[in-house]
């Protein structure tokens, strides 16, 4: 299990590095007009990377997708469009606030992920959404370190 998580983390980092490398929004603009170096990423992994992170995270009380989430979901979209696999999107919330309101918040998160995937061309019929609210946390602490891990949508194949 640890190996798999490390692979996911590495993959995530790879995707992130790719994105950052391509990003042109650098606040400290240098005057020298040197061309942007090619992403180092190319040489690392030879075949197409098959493992994608299966979780995306959210800000407190929010259900909009962060740039990181979009990147991960883009990869899922490609995978889903290539095959006709059905996926269950499970939305979660951290423990704060009332339980049924958190069920609704978890659902909003799952639906935000579904809507993004559909926009990328994934068939809506292959996407199932469900919310667990705060009922199935992965982290059991009562602090932001745990809460941030619980505000998530899991992509289950």
């Amino acid at each position: 299990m640890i190996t798999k998580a490390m692979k996911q983390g590495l993959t995530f980092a790879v995707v992130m590095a790719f994105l950052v490398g391509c990003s042109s929004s650098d606040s400290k603009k240098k005057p020298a007009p040197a061309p942007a170096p090619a992403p180092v990423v190319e040489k690392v992994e030879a075949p197409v990377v098959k493992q994608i992170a299966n979780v995306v995270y959210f800000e407190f009380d929010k259900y909009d997708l962060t740039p990181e989430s979009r990147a991960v979901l883009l990869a899922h979209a490609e995978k889903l469009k290539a095959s006709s696999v059905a996926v269950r999107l499970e939305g979660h919330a951290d423990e704060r606030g009332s339980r049924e309101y958190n069920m609704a918040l978890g659902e909003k998160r799952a639906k935000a992920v579904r809507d993004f995937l559909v926009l990328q061309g994934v068939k809506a019929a292959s996407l199932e959404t469900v919310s667990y609210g705060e009922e199935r946390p992965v982290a059991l602490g009562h602090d932001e370190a745990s809460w941030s891990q619980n505000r998530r949508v899991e992509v289950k194949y």
Partner: protein
Amino acid sequence: MKRFVLLFIVLLTGYAQAQLTNITISKGVDNPTRIAVVPFNYSGPKLAEDIPEIIRNDLNFSGQFESISVDKMISYPQSEAEIRYRDWKMINAEYLLIGGITLQSGRYIATYELFDVAQQKRVLIKNSVEGSDAQLRDMAHRISDKVYETITGIRGIFSTKIVYVEAFQKPAKYRLMLSDVDGARSRALLESKQPILSPVWSADGTRIAYVSFETNDPFIYVQNIATGRREQVTNFKGSLNGAPAFSPDGQKLALVLSKDGNPEIYVLDLATRVFTRVTNHFAIDTEPSWTADGSGIFFTSDRAASKAQIYKVTLATGQTERVTFDGEYNARGRVSPDGKSLIVVNRREGDTYHIAALDLKSGNLRVLTETNLDESPSIAPNGAMLMYATSSGGKGILAAVSLDARTKVKLPSKQGDVREPAWSPFF
């Protein structure tokens, strides 16, 4: 389509493992009424329950009484003739309860009499309760109810029950538990590997409704307490099915479905099985609860700038008005039995989640709890106390507070996280 997944239902009779134990009074009223409950006169084989001790604990639980411990008592009168009032004045007792237990043809009869120490006179004529050996606790609670009501003028809640959810991790297990209000005689109504939430009682105390994920998706079930028979009443896959609430007449269930695009309140007629939509707004609308006369429903909505607040809809007209204005977050409103207060989960800016009471007439909000991450308040049927879920030492526990916030009680459990208490009606 309807699957009665009885695999997961375990009806355990007797004492289950995770009982609420060691009720601790964190804070009582400033001058609780001191009462001496004298050991009852009894000669016979040892009884399974100590009736006077149950009465002492009941009265302590209310926070309005302080029961004097037996070792402080100077004498143990068993009849009015044996009472020496100076013995009781000396230990500052305000009331004195004496009694006796006899066994007649297999039935226990407990008699009891109440006296006012300062006035040195009888307050209650000799009353009696009777029952089988399995009903000794019930007999004790009936005596507590009578004593409480006689002295305070408010109906006692010691014979009521609570339903709550118990959750375990690794492996994940969830149990819907029923117990006496003091935590005794707990038994599981449902056991599952998947979450159970939002238990509620019908007003006549015969049924509960709750949400269960046992089939992998959340659906609402109605279960008869006595028989254990239950029925799945919603079946909308890919939708929220949540937050059930029985109407005061028990004929309908308000609930939340998102089948039409986003969470909305619906009312299900339990006889006709027809769903009637109540709210129609793109915001989250959830956590319905009925007004006492059944003409309206309070609910949580984030329609105002995506901040959760409580609204009330009048069912006949559809007219909706906002009810809470104090705090960044107000959710899960439940009206008190006298209709005057709305109990809510509230968060003010910079603070954490507390249980608060909103005066529906004046709009004044009073925060009642000092614990952290408070949720799921459930009001006692006499309106004097409420129970809620909170966190202590990293574990979920239940706690109780009086509506005037002067009494605070904690009910820690032995195992697992305990939450979502639902206080029964009077039976």
